[in-house]
């Protein structure tokens, strides 16, 4: 519900995710940075990240959507959020 009341566009989502990650990892993150190979995402944090995306953008990320590729960088996560939000709207 909360998500439907505000604009979800690439710029907003990317900005929010960059801020969220910078706060959690304690240093600035760039949109294309590979979070996993840089060792920025621990196992505990990976799960938090999924829950955070689901909660912030009112999504369900399950099954094939959970591949590592979708979480590799802020840009990839932004694409995932936009794609799943669009899907949710067209579903009903």
């Amino acid at each position: 519900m909360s998500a439907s009341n505000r604009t979800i566009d690439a710029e907003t989502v990317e900005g929010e995710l960059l801020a969220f990650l910078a706060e959690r990892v304690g240093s600035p993150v760039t949109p294309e940075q590979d979070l996993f190979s840089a060792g920025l995402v621990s196992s505990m944090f990976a799960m938090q990240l999924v829950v955070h995306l689901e909660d912030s953008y009112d999504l369900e990320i399950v099954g094939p959507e959970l591949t590592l590729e979708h979480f590799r960088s802020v840009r990839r996560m932004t694409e995932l959020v936009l794609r799943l939000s669009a899907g949710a709207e067209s579903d009903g």
Partner: protein
Amino acid sequence: MAETSGPTVLDDLAFLDELIGTGPQTWDVIGELPVELLRELGAMGLLCAEVPTRFGGLGADSRRNGELTAHIGGLCSSLRSIMTSQGIAATAVRRFGDRAQRQRYLGELTGGTLAAVGFSEPEAGSDLAAMRTRIERAGDTVTVSGEKRWVTGARYADLLLVLGRDGENAAAVLVPSDAPGVTVEPVLDPMGCRAAGHSRVLLDEVRLPASAVLGGGGHALALLFTTALSYGRMSVAWGCVGILRACLRAATAHAKVREQSGKPLAEHQLVAKHLASLFTAEQVATQACRQASERWDAAAPDMAVAAVLAKHVGATNAARSAGEAVQVLASWGAQDGHVVARAYRDAKLMEIIEGSNEISELILAEHALEHS
């Protein structure tokens, strides 16, 4: 995540006492659970009670499943271990499976099919980077090779949820235990949870349809592992609450009636101190579990850490308190099969599995540092 509000089988758990009866004492001594009972509980949805009703489950929230887990854990930690495995498998399917897999496997897991979960390997316990099991996809088949150790419940399982490397990433695959190339060797004389069917599982180029790989694979090992393990930690944590409640019950009942020097044990101050300590431990572990279940049901970002905390508080308190319960019962409880003797051995294992005390402490320390 919970969805039911109407009456369910979970409203009154007394039927379990009747169903399970004095079995646990015998099961501990002979080292085996009656598989027909496991199937019966499984078909009632009780082995993985959080599976939503639309898949045939009971749709319990974490708190209700927790109370169920504690109830069964207070009767038999071996049986509770089977619930933990089945619940981990269901959690992994629910999160990582595609639509068809969720429909199929969650239906099976709430229909009497039994599952075990293979994480640990000879060279990789908590160190996942060392995992050697390979899940290799080629067209519409997949080949699984590797070795898993200490797989709880594998002896009874129809399905084995196996974690392995999938190229540079990770995958989880559901392997039928009767598939060619699968060997299940029960661990002889485990110290605790003796009837839980712990086994070594060998996978020798097991070929399966690609549809057995959850969500097509290519997942982050860290995510796959933490998701599955977090459920396991919640389950073990509530199971430890059950151990603590059973120990408290046995110790207080004994201390009330057994006399020493002309008065009940309970009136001896040094014994009373043990009872106070048991009561405190049970209360503290219960609160940690309730808190973690609340985080879990709210899908809070810190749910994984809350699960580690609950597991750590539960396991350390259960291990210490079980020793005190044996102390209070003395020779009355010092025989294998007795509830406190089982608790003493079972609780020690809880300090080792699903993240040892030391691993739990590392995670909690890291969390403390991040939030200081």
